[in-house]
């Protein structure tokens, strides 16, 4: 298609006809379908999918909302790389390159680019929530900026589930889904464990051990794919998973800490 003449878009900027392969189908099967679509300057992959919808495939299923990388709806795999469609600019591809768009491959497919992400909502429910400190009333919370900074980084998460999709623990091993919460929700445990006022411990809930025993922290082999694909650039592995592993070590594998706790409890 590189030979295709470059028509001028309405505003005079260069446009070209791009080649795309888009996966179409549902749980019963499907295939990569070829399309040729106009591509204009400054566009992102989601624009192309929308143009396909409006002109060639009215029933092409795709999730999206904000088109600004803020809602985490438009997750897909573009040339095999897990990405947000609305944040993948067409200018990163050569005009003669065929761009392949498929749904996320770790989750069951619903239709076309839409997958069933209920795995993530199930996992979200299994993480014990924030435990408010007893006796601290409305407007009485006092937290320093430096104390909330770590958890704030994790709360930037837009729940695009790209990390959950890419993590090989579940992507390549369906059978691990039951035992493994996935990076996004292990990070949620880290977030709560680092929350300066979370009173889980006082309430008898040990998030550190639970991460290891109940949410599958040990499955993570810190190979960092979650960090690589996170569109919010959250340092999931370095700032959440590894610290959480270290915290679990504190609880479970550190004889000094263990001894200290025994003595203090007396």
């Amino acid at each position, binding site marked *: 298609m590189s030979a295709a003449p470059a028509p001028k878009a309405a505003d005079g900027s260069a446009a070209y006809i791009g080649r795309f392969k888009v996966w179409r189908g549902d749980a019963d099967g499907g295939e990569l379908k070829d399309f040729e679509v106009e591509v204009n300057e400054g566009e992102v992959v989601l624009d192309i999918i929308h143009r396909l919808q409006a002109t060639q495939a009215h029933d092409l299923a795709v999730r999206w909302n904000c088109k600004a990388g803020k809602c985490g709806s438009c997750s897909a795999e573009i040339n095999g790389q897990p990405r947000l469609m609305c944040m993948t600019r067409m200018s990163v591809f050569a005009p003669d390159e065929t761009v392949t768009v498929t749904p996320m491959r770790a989750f069951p497919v619903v239709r076309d680019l839409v997958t069933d992400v209920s795995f993530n909502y199930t996992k979200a429910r299994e993480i014990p929530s924030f435990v408010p400190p007893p006796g601290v009333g409305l407007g009485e919370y006092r937290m320093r900026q*430096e104390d909330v900074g770590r958890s704030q980084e994790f709360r930037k998460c837009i729940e695009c589930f790209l990390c959950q999709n890419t993590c090989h623990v579940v992507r390549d091993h369906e059978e691990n889904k039951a035992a493994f919460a996935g990076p996004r929700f292990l990070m949620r445990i880290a977030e709560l464990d680092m929350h300066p006022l979370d009173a889980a411990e006082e309430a008898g809930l040990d998030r550190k051990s639970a991460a290891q025993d109940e949410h599958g922290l040990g499955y993570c082999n810190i190979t960092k794919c979650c960090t690589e694909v996170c569109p919010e650039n959250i340092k999931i592995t370095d700032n959440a998973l590894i610290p959480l592993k270290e915290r679990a*070590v504190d609880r479970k594998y550190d004889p000094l800490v263990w001894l200290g706790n025994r003595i203090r409890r007396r």
Partner: protein
Amino acid sequence: MATTETPGPARPAEPSGGVHAPGRAAIAARHLRTDRWWLAPAVTATVLTVFVVYSTWRAFANADYYAAPYISPYYSPCIATDCVNMRGGADLQIFGPWWGLSPALLVLIFPLGFRLTCYYYRKAYYRGFWAAPPACAVAEPHGKYTGETRFPLILQNVHRYFFYFALVFAVILTYDAALGFRDAAGHWGHMGLGTVVLLVNVALIWVYTLSCHSCRHIIGGRLKNFSKHPVRYRMWGWVGRLTAHHMALAWGSLVMVAVADLYVYLVASGAFADPTFF
């Protein structure tokens, strides 16, 4: 040979598992990446293999590890009676003459364990050698995966103890580097290329060791309220800045250790004369 360790698309995947599990989008290819995703694991595996081969040879060699005043980092501290006399160096003669093997084997276990359980090297060899996963969104060839949940990989959790030992080693190597300012006869006021090599080596060892994730945790990461520990918070910040470069430091210090050893070897074996500055 290392590159063959990284499984290309050639190896068949379990047809029923992973990305081909029932219900997922029916795409035959195990991945659709078009970039050179195999490059990083291939390079990792190659360099690590070269390093392991070289180090094994050197560790068992039991020769050419001391060229006064320089000692190879592989043999420090030297804690067997058959170590060469190092004149004030870290040779402690803890192990008697019954120890017939290379004294390097007695101590290398610690730096080896430190690096083997290092969070970065784990990533590197899991990807490079085990292909779990070879690269992101590239299906791995294994039918089953339990990660670090059970023996032996659960032992990775001991990393912090190796970190404590690594600190000791860093101190000893610093001492060795300082001794590099003496001449072969033991008089202070010398500096040769070897001194520089040992200094750079120990500097890299220090930053690598301090950039350890366990270090970051122990320094401050384990705290819930930073504001109550302002000093540790500051230090946590510094360590954190190093930790962000942990990968680069890991590679840098790995290569440098081998270079330092090689340098001592070359000088000790007489293949090269240490240029002296003063």
